[in-house]
């Protein structure tokens, strides 16, 4: 099963390599990873998408916590949360296809961020399914390049007081 976990770490050099080394050394999967500073500049957040059974996830959680630089580990699985990825898609255009592509972009609430005589570059954010759906629809027109970020996630706030 896939899990999105959020890891708060001290913002020091070498921390990324400790985390990725832990995953490779113990045979855990990393499907995606994104890192950036938090509100507190001494702390970074890593959002890691990984997979494994309960036993593996328990070990991932404990092993991460064992690293001196790790402050907190949070698994979003089973929690109400928002997940987002961002992708840039460079797609071929022709006089005939332009309008159709723009309407797809519109439907997905994506936007065209760069235009050349032969290509559009489209920016889309959303969860993984949404981005995959867009790329599937664009594929017949000829996708020249895709760049995707890793997934980021945030817990939803409780709706009642």
């Amino acid at each position, binding site marked *: 099963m896939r899990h999105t976990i959020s890891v708060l*770490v*001290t913002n020091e050099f*070498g921390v990324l*390599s*400790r985390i990725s*080394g*832990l995953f490779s*050394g113990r045979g855990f999967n990393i499907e995606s990873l994104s890192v950036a500073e938090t509100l507190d500049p001494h702390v970074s957040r890593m959002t890691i998408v990984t997979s494994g059974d309960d*036993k593996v996830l*328990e*070990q991932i959680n*404990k*092993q991460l*916590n*064992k690293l*001196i*630089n*790790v*402050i907190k580990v949070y698994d979003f699985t089973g929690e109400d949360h928002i997940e987002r990825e961002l992708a840039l898609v460079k797609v071929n255009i022709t006089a005939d296809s332009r309008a159709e592509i723009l309407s797809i972009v519109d439907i997905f609430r994506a936007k065209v961020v760069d235009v050349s005589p032969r290509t559009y570059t489209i920016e889309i954010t959303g969860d993984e399914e949404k981005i995959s759906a867009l790329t599937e629809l664009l594929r017949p027109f000829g996708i020249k390049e895709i760049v995707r970020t890793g997934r980021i996630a945030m817990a939803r706030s409780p709706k009642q007081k």
Partner: protein
Amino acid sequence: MTKKNGAVILLECLIKEGVDTVFGFPGGAVLPIYDALYDSPIKHILVRHEQGAVHMADGYARALGRPGVVIVTSGPGATNTVTGIATAYMDSIPMVVITGQVPTALIGNDAFQEADIVGITRPCTKHNYLVKDLKDLPRIIKESFYIATTGRPGPVLVDIPKDVLTAVMGELKYPDKITIESYQPNYKGHPGQIKKALQLILSAKRPVVYAGGGVVLSNAAQELTAFAEKLGIPTTTTLMGLGGFPGTHDLFMGMLGMHGTFCANMAVTNTDCLIAIGARFDDRVTGKIDEFAPYADIVHIDIDPTSISKNVSVDIPIVGDVKEVLKEMVKALPQAKALKEHRKGLSEWQAQINEWRTTHALSYNQEPNGKIKPQFVIEKLYELTKGNAIITTEVGQNQMWAAQFFKYDKPRSFLTSGGLGTMGFGFPAAIGAQIAFPKSTVAVIAGDGSLQMNIQELATAVQYKLPVKVVILNNMVLGMVRQWQELFFDKRYSHTCISVAPDFVKLADAYGAVGLRAKKPSEVEQVLKEGLAVKDRPVLMDFRIDQFEGVYPMVPAGQPLNKMLLV
């Protein structure tokens, strides 16, 4: 205000940490440290190879219970420490390794004697540091000792570039206390879990204690003995746990696992309540994991949460320091009278244990005129020292025989590379232990193969007049590998014959040590007596043993514990 350079500051930090002995080898990048050592009260032990320094610091730490400290230079000096660091890491030994590094401006430039030692040792240290600025050095040294010695102990490496060592600052302000937000080891066991565990243990009909190195590391031997005695629970230890429970105690069943006793392995296979204390269910202990302790509810006490339910799923985990938790448990036990009743209730189980103990006890057959049996040498050593010695081992058959045939009543009296299984560990570790305890008898039970992996440290032992006893069980083969070839590879003895070897007696002589040899069983006692009497330099005792002696019982890898090959 007087200005001090980084090297002087470093040594002052070490003194603040209570360090009086370091093990090391100089080189370009650490010249400033060596210059400062020249005027320092710290005693420096000059080794002959950096790996030796790390194993010595390791042996020193294991024997003394205080962190070992190593100083080596950059590049090859640093990379030579890696096996020693990994050895300490696997066995959770507190240690601080200080490596020199090329000046910060040259880092990453493939400078002379540059190696990314922080990168290399990341997976085999508890934590490591590159010091980029002298002002961070005191805090980093403080943190290093704190991390190395607290929680589950382990080695910490501090890499210091040369320009940091030569930079100057004012008086040292060494922090008294330190807290690390992201590192807060848990010592107290959860009271609810302790209560649940005690209920289970008191209701068990066939309980067994399985104790590991954690008992030794947390100095909990007394607490463990009290716990087992009060409840009347038969006890086995892992290789690392030997000495954590008295080897001559009535409740002791010997070591369990691949070369464990028949009694311990049968007890663990048949127990209904396994109490794992500071142990980690290593594959050499469990054998086939699905059939390990199949009838047991398992209680697991360990300070490291990652050890719990890693290999075997546990019914009642207790995260905490073994000593603290055992204290709490003993405190919560019923009254003496009730305990007596309880022990009476276990008499059937105890009788069964005793039957297993006698049916296939550890044994060997020493023909008076035959070849020397290695077990005989070890038993004689035990007899002559009355068990009053610190024993280290190399790795292989020598290690297993030393575990089986010497009885360890005290913690920190048996020092061995259990997790990593590092050949070449035992001799330098014995040197380290001898430095920690100059008056004690320290002996390494060695094989002729392992010993040669760090034989150069003989010069170190001679230089510091250390009377380390090197008991060579010389069979002229790489015995344990050869035993596996005999059993599992059709006796195809590929590359395990090392009969081309130095004459150890002459070698001892060449180094300025004492060399002795026994070829017949009748000579064993005399050689040991002579060797034990030497007080001012190391002794190499070359025992020419039976080449075909094996280590038994043996559970073939991947088999359940009750499927032992017996003698």
